[in-house]
Each structure stands twice: as structure tokens, then as C-alpha cells.
């Protein structure tokens, strides 16, 4: 195509040539476009059509009239949500859960990776890796089930408490225990898996850096601080941005499973509320409005954090 453009500069106007070569390019690759087709259709149908469907948040959606036929109501559903007594409770629960999860859950994989990286024996290291990654593959239902059996009134934990002379606690009935259980189980399940990416970054550290540090008399502790940690910083920043950007996208499936009638005051978060309002009570428009509120906050957070991180460290998502 380059050749064609150079060969006939006088006969064809440049625009025509560019158009023709574009078309040629597309035609010659038509099989690749066919490859893309299923995924493209998927993203349009299951992601972009629902984005259009968000319009129902500004309407009183009636299924028989369809999205277009339903009457506009402006911000009615948003106002109802902001005015409801649950609004601040939901915000507090959702943010509380995700912020604590971030503060607790974010640094732990870094520590674990640094520790695993210092293991001398390769066999022990491999064994540790196999074990700590494993919980990641446990389904959320099984994880919640484990929490129920361990923290039931006659479960393992209460038996332990009895041995140490304490009084049994009905964990699943106390709102105060919802957050700790949610977060601790998340740490147990995901810390090992999240450490992989840091381990990969650590494996990429040039051995010469460590050798030079040893020559200069640095001990292991100093090498961790001055070689290892700087090496994983860029990775950590990116992951932090992603995590903060997803702060309102809290793992809703687990929260829903861990809800009991008694811990509801602490366990109701925006996504579970959307599910109950929308799908259990069929208030589609209202639930869509609440969901949209959630996604917009999320997007704004992501953009802000990305900007902030770029200014601070020069690394960002885009």
C-alpha cells in the first residue's frame, strides 16, 4: 500500500488514495474482523445496551411500554434515595467496609511477597506458594459456608473461646462482627494470590543490585528497604489506583451471603440494596438510579486517584 501511494502521486489525489488503501486494508483483513465479531456483539449487547438502559433511572419504567415509552421523571428516584433514612447508613456501611478492607488488605500482600522472596530453600518456597494461593480458588459460597460453620454458636471459634475461659459470642447475629468477619475472610482468601504480582516484580530485580548492596555491607533488612521495596513501588501504585477506583464495587456476593436478619444494620451495602429493591421488589427504576449513583462515584474516584497518582509518582492507568 505504501508502494501504491508513492507510485501514483499525480494521478490520484492523496485523500482518494488514503480512502482506497483504508478500504483495502479492511478488506484484506476481513477474517480478523470476523474473529472480533462475537466479542464485539457481546460487549455491545451486554455492556453498551445496559448503559443505554440506565435511562430508566430517569423514568418510571413500565415493562410493557419499554425504555423509550416510559415517562420521564427527572431526578425523582435519586431524590427519593437521597431523602430515604437508609441513604447515610448505606453510604457509611459501603464506604466503611471498603475503606477498611483497602487499608488492611492492601499492604498485606506486599509484606507476604517480601517475606516469601526471602525464603532460602526453593522447595519450601514452592510449597508455601502452592498453599497460600489455594484459598483464592474456593468459591464465595463455600467461603461464606466456612464462616458460618466456624463462627456458629457451637463452632470452632466459640469452642476456642471456651477453652480460654471466655464467653461464647453469636458472631453472625451481631452487626459489630460483620465487618471484621468480612475483612478477615477476605484477607485469608486473597492475600496469597495478590502477592503473586509483587513476587513477579521482585523476581525482575537485577541480581547485580543485590550484589552491589552486599558489597557495600548492606544486610538483608537494608536490602529489602533499599532494593526490594523501590522495585515493587510502581506495581503497588497501579494496584492502589485500581483498588481505590473500585472502592464502591465492594464484593457484593459475599456481603449478601453473610447477611443475616440480625446483622442487617451493618451488612446492608449499596449493591445488596440495589439487588433487593430491583430484583426482589421489582422497583427497576429506583434500583437503577441507586446503581447509577454508585457507578458514577466510582468513576469519579478512579479518575481523581489516577490524576493524583500521576502527579505524585508519574505512574498512572492512562
Amino acid at each position, binding site marked *: 500500500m505504501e508502494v501504491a501511494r508513492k507510485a501514483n502521486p499525480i494521478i490520484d489525489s492523496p485523500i482518494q488514495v488514503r480512502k482506497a488503501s483504508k478500504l483495502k486494508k479492511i478488506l484484506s483483513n476481513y477474517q480478523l474482523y470476523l474473529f472480533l465479531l462475537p466479542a464485539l456483539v457481546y460487549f455491545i449487547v451486554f455492556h453498551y445496551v445496559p448503559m443505554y438502559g440506565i435511562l430508566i433511572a430517569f423514568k418510571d419504567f413500565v415493562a410493557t411500554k419499554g425504555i423509550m415509552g416510559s415517562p420521564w421523571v427527572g431526578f425523582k428516584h435519586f431524590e427519593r434515595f437521597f431523602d430515604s433514612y437508609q441513604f447515610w447508613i448505606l453510604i457509611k456501611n459501603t464506604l466503611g467496609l471498603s475503606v477498611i478492607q483497602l487499608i488492611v488488605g492492601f499492604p498485606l500482600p506486599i509484606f507476604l511477597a517480601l517475606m516469601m522472596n526471602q525464603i532460602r530453600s526453593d522447595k519450601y518456597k514452592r510449597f508455601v506458594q502452592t498453599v497460600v494461593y489455594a484459598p483464592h480458588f474456593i468459591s464465595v459460597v463455600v467461603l461464606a459456608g466456612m464462616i458460618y460453620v466456624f463462627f456458629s454458636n457451637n463452632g470452632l471459634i466459640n469452642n476456642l473461646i471456651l477453652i480460654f475461659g471466655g464467653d461464647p459470642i453469636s458472631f453472625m447475629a451481631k452487626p459489630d462482627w460483620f465487618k471484621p468477619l468480612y475483612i478477615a475472610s477476605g484477607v485469608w482468601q486473597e492475600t496469597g494470590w495478590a502477592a503473586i504480582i509483587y513476587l513477579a516484580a521482585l523476581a525482575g530485580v537485577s541480581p547485580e543490585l543485590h550484589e552491589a548492596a552486599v558489597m557495600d555491607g548492606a544486610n538483608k533488612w537494608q536490602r529489602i528497604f533499599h532494593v526490594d521495596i523501590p522495585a515493587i513501588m510502581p506495581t503497588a501504585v497501579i494496584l492502589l489506583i485500581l483498588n481505590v477506583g473500585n472502592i464502591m464495587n465492594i464484593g457484593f456476593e459475599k456481603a449478601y451471603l453473610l447477611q443475616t436478619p440480625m446483622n442487617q444494620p451493618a451488612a446492608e451495602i449499596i449493591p445488596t440494596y440495589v439487588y433487593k429493591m430491583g430484583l426482589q421488589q421489582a422497583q427497576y427504576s429506583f434500583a437503577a438510579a441507586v*446503581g447509577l449513583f454508585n457507578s458514577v462515584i466510582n468513576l469519579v474516584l478512579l479518575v481523581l486517584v489516577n490524576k493524583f497518582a500521576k502527579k505524585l509518582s508519574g505512574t498512572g492507568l492512562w
Partner: protein
Amino acid sequence: MSILALKNKRMTRKSKEDKVFDIINFFLVAIILLLVVYPLYFIIIASISDPNMIYEGKVWLLPKELTLEGYQRIFGDSKIWLGYKNSIIYTVVGTIVNVSFTLMAAYALSRKDLYGRNVIMFLFLMTMFFSGGLIPTYLVVKNLGLLNTMWALILPKAVAVWNVIVAKTFFESSIPGELLEAARIDGCSDAKFFWKIVLPLSKPIVAVMVLFYAVGHWNSYFDALIYLNNENLYPLQLILRNILIQNQASTMMISDLDSLAAKQRVSELIKYGVIIVASIPLLIVYPFVQKYFVKGVMIGGIKG
């Protein structure tokens, strides 16, 4: 890494602080190991212990008064088998759809001569940061008439953007451009090139994709919860949820017991058992395929 390890070993004069460091590190890691393993281990021993022993807190390190009653009741329940069958079907069909859609799209996007690839990639990536949300997606699935069919569990999750990125990165870095040029000179079409040359060279990434998607299908319950209300279509995870969390389905399994206390205890036993039963396929495969999962994360991470 290995060079470093070798050099470390050769350097015999290790400082005292470093030795202390190694010892402390060893034990800290061992404690972490215990914290991870013990809950899993306890589920196993509890599932074969007499329920009264668990109830009284006498099971700690070894199973007490071995019994297989829990497993007998679990395997005697037709719902569990049905759930197993459904989960296997959804996992196999779903994974085939996932992997083929993902790899084809990822390969096309990895080709630098594809006009418009940046626009399409942007369209895909956008969905990671903003989505229509639960309700509009549900309405789409409903309007397509997918409710109460297995396609409701498969099509709305057909492609994961992240996996497209991982596969695309892999293709870009491991399929040399010269190969394509050579194939073109021989008159090979894109489809043929993909099928005959790219795929055979990409076995690791195919394995990664299959594993990621298959585990996702096997473990998911939420789509089934919202899109299915016909019990005969329930996947295993949904049946598990009813047993573990809602104490529901197990009433069928323990209908022959008289006293409430006995019922309660056996239903606890059944809970331990179903956790094992549901996790067994993964537990068996996991040690062998772990390296592929790790590989997948790393390929994604380099890009990320």
C-alpha cells in the same frame, strides 16, 4: 534469581543479623502457612468426625469417632447430583464459549495491521470502568428471553476484558511478525494462520484461559440466583448456598431423624461434607495447574 541464589550460597560469611533474619522469616512464614491450612484441614477432619464430638469441641487435630454418615446422606441426595451435573454442563459449555470468543478477539486485536484496533480496544476497556449496572443488565437478559435457560449464565459473561488483555499481550510478545509474513507468502489466510500456527504456539495461554474461565463458572452462584428460578437448573453452588447458609435443602437429607438436636448436629456434619464435595474437583486439579494460573497473573501484570 537462580544466579543470585547460587551466589548467596557461595557467600559463606553471612552476617549474624542475616541469620537471625532468616530464622525469624522462616517461622513467620510457617505461622502464615498454619493460618491458611488449618481451616481447610479442620473442614476435612470435621466432615468425617462424629457430629457430637465437633459439637462438644473435641475435634482439633485428628478426626474423632470416624463416621461417613455425612457423606452417605450427601450422596444419597438427588439434588446434589443434579447440581453437579448442571455445574459440569455450564462449566464446559461456558468455558468453550469464553475461550473461543476471547482468543479470537485477542488475536485480532494483537495484529498491528488491523484498522481500528485502538477504537475497539477502547470500547472493550471502557466496560471495565463503567457499567450499566445490575438492573439494566438484568432487563437485557430478560428481554432476550434468556431467563431460566443455561444461556443466562453463559452469554452475559461471555468475555472478560482482563482475559482479552492477557491473551493479547501474550500473542503480541510470542508470535513473531516474520511468521505471519512467511505464511502470507505461502498464501495462508488469517483464519488458517490462527488455527494452524498461532494456537499450537499458544498452548500455555489457552490453558490459562480455560482454567480462569472454568473456575469462574464452577464457583459462581450469583447469576444463577438472579436468572434462574427453576430448581432443576440450579448449579451446585446455589444448592450449596441453600444447604450452608439457609439450612434449607438439608431438611430433605435428615428427614428420618427424630430429635431436633440430632437433626441440627447431622446438618452441621452435612455442611462440612458438602464443602469438601463441592471443592473436590478443584482440589484435585489445583496442584497440577497452579503454575498456569500464576502465569496468567504475571502476563496480565506485566501489561497492567
